[in-house]
């Protein structure tokens, strides 16, 4: 089981919950589980999300395994300069 | 647009007089070519005066320096006699733009561009320099401050152009200085410009003084009472305070993208004080 914290913008789309627990081994599993539970999340998840696992930001690598007890955060996909 | 490169002054004045529409003189071109970039620039004729004999020369006569209209500012610093006699004028001319601009721009062009913030004009005015104007019916000479009439406007008649700047001999106990305020150390248009020229007697007492301020009015401001406030003094602090206050009072700047009214008035006083002290030492004062 993995605890996932959503960024402010997504909270209203998930029954106003800030953190959720889902069954997941990789980032892809987390995103799939979230979308199944709250279909409204699929829009932002598809084109503007980045996932932070233990402090490291991933923008594309959804195959990244999630270590046991790791902290998972959903963040807006950010632009650099 | 037509480009002409006359070889004599007469041909130049004839060309300028003969133009139906707008005609411009090209010496250094560092102002003219910038104006040409804008879409609404149009001109019938550009007269390049650099092929006219003498335009590129600095001639030393017993009582003056005659600086040809096509002499680039960089060349002024290479003329030891001029630098020795008029360091203020040379430093003002050398503050215009960058090395690349210095290789082209001229004091006559700076004068005719009639920008309130021109760098060389306050120093020339302080030095009581004159402009030798060539025209269809001969030449005339006027004090330089009579050329600019307002931003971008000069007193030159149709067919006239400046042939040379005439700087009188400085005299023994005389010294001049030019300072300007710009946010960067180079490449800026003056937010405030201050030209000072003064002459001393043997004991170091100020006999005469002229203060000219740039970028604090539509044209260069000659601060009469500021000059008066230091005549008869040895430039002690009280005299300098009065000089600075008078310089600020004489300024009537505007707010614009380069500076505010309060800033320009205050800094005019600060620079006037500093320039006066430099001129004083150059004039042999302690």
């Amino acid at each position, binding site marked *: 089981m993995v605890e996932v914290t959503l960024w402010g913008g997504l909270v209203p789309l998930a029954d106003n919950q800030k953190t959720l627990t889902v069954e997941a081994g990789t980032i892809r599993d987390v995103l799939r589980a979230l979308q199944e539970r709250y279909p409204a999340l699929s829009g932002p998840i598809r084109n503007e999300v980045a996932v932070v696992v233990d402090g490291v930001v991933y923008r594309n690598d959804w195959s990244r395994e999630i270590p046991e007890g790791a902290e998972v955060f959903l963040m807006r996909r950010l632009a650099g300069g | 647009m037509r480009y002409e490169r006359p070889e004599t002054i007469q041909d130049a004045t004839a060309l300028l007089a003969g133009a139906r529409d707008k005609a411009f003189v090209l010496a250094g071109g560092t102002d003219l*070519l910038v104006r040409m970039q804008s879409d609404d620039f149009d001109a019938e004729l550009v007269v390049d005066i650099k092929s006219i004999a003498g335009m590129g020369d600095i001639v030393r006569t017993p009582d003056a320096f005659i600086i040809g209209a096509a002499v680039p500012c960089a060349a002024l610093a290479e003329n030891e006699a001029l630098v020795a006699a008029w360091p203020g004028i040379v430093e003002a001319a050398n503050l215009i733009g960058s090395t690349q601009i210095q290789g082209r721009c001229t004091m006559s062009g700076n004068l005719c561009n009639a920008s309130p913030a021109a760098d060389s004009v306050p120093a020339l005015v302080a030095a009581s320099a004159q402009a030798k104007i060539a025209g269809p019916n001969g030449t005339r000479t006027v004090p330089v401050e009579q050329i600019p009439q307002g931003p971008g406007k000069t007193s030159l008649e149709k067919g006239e152009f400046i042939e040379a700047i005439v700087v009188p001999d400085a005299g023994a106990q005389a010294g001049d200085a030019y300072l300007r305020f710009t946010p960067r150390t180079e490449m800026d248009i003056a937010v405030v410009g201050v030209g000072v020229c003064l002459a001393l007697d043997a004991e170091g007492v100020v006999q005469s003084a002229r203060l000219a301020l740039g970028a604090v009015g539509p044209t260069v401001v000659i601060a009469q009472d500021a000059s008066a406030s230091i005549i008869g003094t040895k430039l002690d602090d009280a005299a300098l305070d009065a000089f600075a206050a008078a310089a600020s009072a004489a300024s009537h700047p505007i707010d614009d993208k380069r500076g505010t009214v309060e800033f320009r008035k205050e800094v005019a006083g600060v620079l006037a004080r500093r320039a006066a002290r430099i001129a004083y030492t150059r004039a042999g004062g302690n």
Partner: protein
Amino acid sequence: MSSIAVSTTINGDDVEYLCQADETLLDVLRNRLGLMGAKEGCGTGDCGACSAIVDGRVVCSCLVLGAEAQGRTIETIEGMANGSELHPLQRKFIEHAALQCGICTPGFLMAAKALLDVNSSPTEEEIRYWLAGNLCRCTGYDKIVRAVQDAAQEMQGERA
């Protein structure tokens, strides 16, 4: 507006071209003579990326008319190396990483060459004020100044 015929010398070669009265030397170099080394960064003489040397003085070629080049000697970046042998300044700019994007480099090299031609061992301050007309947004100028100092020393050594 009829064209003006101009004959001049560029990088030691005799060159002739036709240009419009209001055409700048920069446009002539780039669009008529294929000398693309001079770059237009601003078109108003404020950035120095178009610097060229006319009769020994480094100037902004965007503020010179093509017609004014008649009978003058012009040096551009393309003439700085001696065949395939780079000028010491060109070598030192690469060695010191004195360029990143490189768009300002031709202009800096022209200005630095003009400096060393008149002042063979300039101080840091003299270099910085002489090069103030060349804008660079990538390097912060540090390595450019060091490259010019190093080249001056090497050229000084050659002369000594």
